[in-house]
């Protein structure tokens, strides 16, 4: 039970955050408020995973039939919906590019997505940065020169954020683009990594991501060539383990690729079965 006294109002919301975070795990876990043990002596993380284990990843293509392409991803408890329109007529004259398609990304976070409810303005700097990161990633992967003077819209909606929202968004965007039939050089597969006590961790959840004990690395690769298209790291901890973290995260990307590709094939088979009635 969490206790609140009337005198210290500010503590209330912090503890409410805790209450909400508790409810994200199966089985209540109690921990001291000052320090969370990210990796226990048996090698288990706060959610019971091993250091190099990816969270359960499930995908669904075309959840929204009205869009050109769409995909829904659940990576652990992080849930993202991606919707793609295009290529289509460019809406703003200023954005028309004579030799290629213009990629437009909007990154939205539902007010109820985090442990603590928070409504973010559309001009929130962090959201605009994330949208830009996604746009730049796909600018180099989508074969935009095939569709000059048109526009491709990628709308990302984070419905629940339990860590790794950016990577889940990139994975969802990839699937939605594939679903829309937009030509791409390869899948873009993203994953996060961290490091605790010299041990690299794969696919950070929210508690790990917000902890000061580990850096937070997001990387996205093109599986066929292994090329890195996105790399972001924030760190409050001095770490010599960068290469180890990066390699583990890249390995995670390949695991993600296997799941994404498999769900695309399943979806294609289903669609083909439905369409060939004759």
């Amino acid at each position, binding site marked *: 039970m969490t206790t609140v006294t009337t005198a210290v109002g500010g503590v209330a919301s912090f503890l409410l955050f805790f209450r909400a975070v508790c409810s994200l795990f199966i089985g209540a876990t109690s921990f001291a408020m000052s320090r969370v043990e990210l990796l226990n002596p048996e090698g288990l993380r706060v959610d019971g995973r091993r250091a190099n284990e990816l969270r359960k990843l499930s995908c669904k293509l*075309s959840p929204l039939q009205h869009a*050109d*392409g769409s995909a829904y991803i659940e990576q652990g408890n992080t849930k993202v919906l991606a919707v793609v329109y*295009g*290529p*289509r*007529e460019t809406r703003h004259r200023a954005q028309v590019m*004579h030799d290629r398609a213009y990629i437009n990304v909007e990154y939205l976070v539902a007010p109820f997505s985090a442990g603590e409810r928070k409504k973010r303005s559309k001009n929130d700097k962090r959201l605009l940065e994330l949208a830009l990161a996604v746009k730049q990633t796909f600018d180099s992967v989508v*074969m935009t020169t095939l*569709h*000059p*003077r*048109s526009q491709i819209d990628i709308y990302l909606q984070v419905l629940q954020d339990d860590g790794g929202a950016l990577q889940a968004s990139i994975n969802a965007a990839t699937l939605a683009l*594939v*679903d*829309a*039939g*937009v*030509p*791409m*050089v*390869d*899948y873009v597969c993203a994953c996060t990594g961290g490091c605790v006590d010299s041990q690299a961790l794969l696919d950070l959840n929210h508690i790990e991501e917000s902890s000061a004990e580990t850096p937070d690395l997001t990387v996205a690769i*093109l*599986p*066929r060539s292994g090329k890195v298209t996105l790399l972001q790291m924030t760190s409050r901890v001095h770490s010599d383990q960068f290469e180890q973290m990066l390699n583990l995260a890249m390995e995670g990307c390949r695991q993600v690729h296997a799941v994404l*590709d498999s769900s*695309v*094939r399943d979806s*294609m*088979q289903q*669609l*083909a079965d*439905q*369409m*060939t*009635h*004759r």
Partner: protein
Amino acid sequence: MSEQTFVTPAEVVTSDPSFMRGHGTYQEGKDIVSAVAGVVEQVNKLVTVRPLRTRYGGEIGDVVVGRITEVAQKRWKVDVNARQDGVLLLSSVNLPGGVQRRKSESDELQMRKFFTEGDMVVAEAQAFFQDGAMSLHTRSLKYGKLRNGTLVVVPPSLVLRSRSHFHTIANSVEVILGLNGYIWVCKRATKAPEEMDPDELYANVNEDISNQERETIARVCNCLQALSKRLIPIDYTVLAFAYEASLDRETKELLEPEVIEAVTTEAVARAAMVNE
């Protein structure tokens, strides 16, 4: 039915150097690699990958239904559900007073008298601009402004290529199956286009539509939506069978999932027998 080969992005389709790469692929070294998730198609030595879902691309000669979105200098822009709006040049339309009339200055200034924003039109794709935009024409009398009915939108990949895209159902209702997924369902005009006065061609007035005709139009629309929801490829045959199969129910019942299932299953079965 032949086996379909599915490929996904970055999958190698073939490394055989005698093949040429087509749409949906790219070349990397000696490999032809897929750029989309779709079905491999091969015509002679040309290899392409066709995605199962994609926006309408179109070919020259396609019959399309579109909506005027913009009135510009000597041309209109038309939403044809494609990657770019189509273009209908002033020089590509029939103007009242005869097909061979010279275009005069006043025509350009009065472009809105012919087509204005929002108007529905049926046209043919005559060419493509370099950037991929479709150039349309309405030179034949069967093309032009649409009236007396309503629009149904279906995924373009479901509209099958046929000899004709203009059909009649139940004697009273006309259906224009635009290859771009826009379908116009209307009362069959009492007068043929050749019999119309020149200003009637561009008039924005509907004929009187009887209740019976209205019901039939609604029924056809619902059949089209039903086929679309079940992802059934659409042509006149399957639509006519769906219409017949629906007759023992009220028009609005066709909005219910169970009825959609029953009617479309019957339509597909009957269409299959005809094709054998």
